[in-house]
């Protein structure tokens, strides 16, 4: 019982925030996706989404590549190996705790 409660304290707070959890979960299921897709799926505004992505980038969970699709600028995001591992651990901890 005690270890079950302790596992809540071990939950990764970077991922646990709902906005960032949405981003990580969406990126976990794909190889890469762009900013517009995440905005469409999460319904977040550009500013909020950008700040969450910056936080995930700081934690080295997400890799951001600025590129062009034709003449249109495109921001492509990919979950890093560390991000993938952290999300799997987060799911395990959450399952154990609840």
């Amino acid at each position: 019982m005690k270890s079950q409660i302790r596992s809540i304290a071990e939950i990764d707070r970077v991922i646990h925030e709902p906005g960032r959890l949405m981003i990580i979960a969406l990126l976990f299921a794909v190889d890469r996706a762009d900013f517009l897709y995440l905005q469409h799926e999460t319904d977040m505004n550009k500013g909020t989404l950008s700040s969450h992505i910056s936080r995930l980038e700081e934690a080295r969970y997400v890799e951001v590549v600025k590129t062009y699709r034709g003449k249109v600028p495109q921001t492509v995001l990919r979950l890093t190996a560390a991000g993938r591992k952290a999300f799997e651990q987060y799911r395990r901890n959450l399952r154990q705790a609840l």
Partner: protein
Amino acid sequence: MSYVGSLLERPKAYYNIDGVGELGIGFMCLSWSLLGWLQLHTPKTSVWNQMYTFLIYVAVMTSIIHYGSKAIKNRITYPRTGFVDYRPRDKYWIPMAVGFSVSAVMAAGIAWAARRHWEISTPASLLGLLFAAGYIRIARTVAWKWLMFVILLVGTVIVAILPGEMLESFANDTSPARGISPRAAGAFWMTFVIYGAVLLVSGGISFWLYVHHTQAPAREGE
């Protein structure tokens, strides 16, 4: 955890947000039925019954589906609701493994039944039920697609209860020489036509709704 689970499923459902997935499978089913019709209604020595024609036909069909889907995604979907690149496992290996397994089992089953001169129109109805069961995955994403699911089920039932003579009339009387009874050939042909037509209509409606309810947003300032 179900919230996270549903989030993990969303990117897979996104592939068909514009109906392209259904249009592709519908086109494939109708292409198979067209080839089947040509094979059944031409002499066994005709060009449509040659292996090289079959291979060219499959190459053209898969190229149209692959490049057509890619063109729609690049020109319409990605600028409107965003770009997604799937993992190689989801993109190639799983569909290839499923397609290969189903084709191998079907081909082996038909060949086995034909060798024993069994009447195999019932498996055509079972194939229809299998198609309909597979469609549940798509129907779960949008409420109105359950209507398409019902149409698929009704179509399967119709194929199962149609008089044998009517099914035989769809196939040519040369089909016994090919190791398959006219009735079974007609039932399989009809199943593919119904499934292809329903998917094309469903995909077409999805595509129309998608184009009319989304607009390409300004992308500067990311």
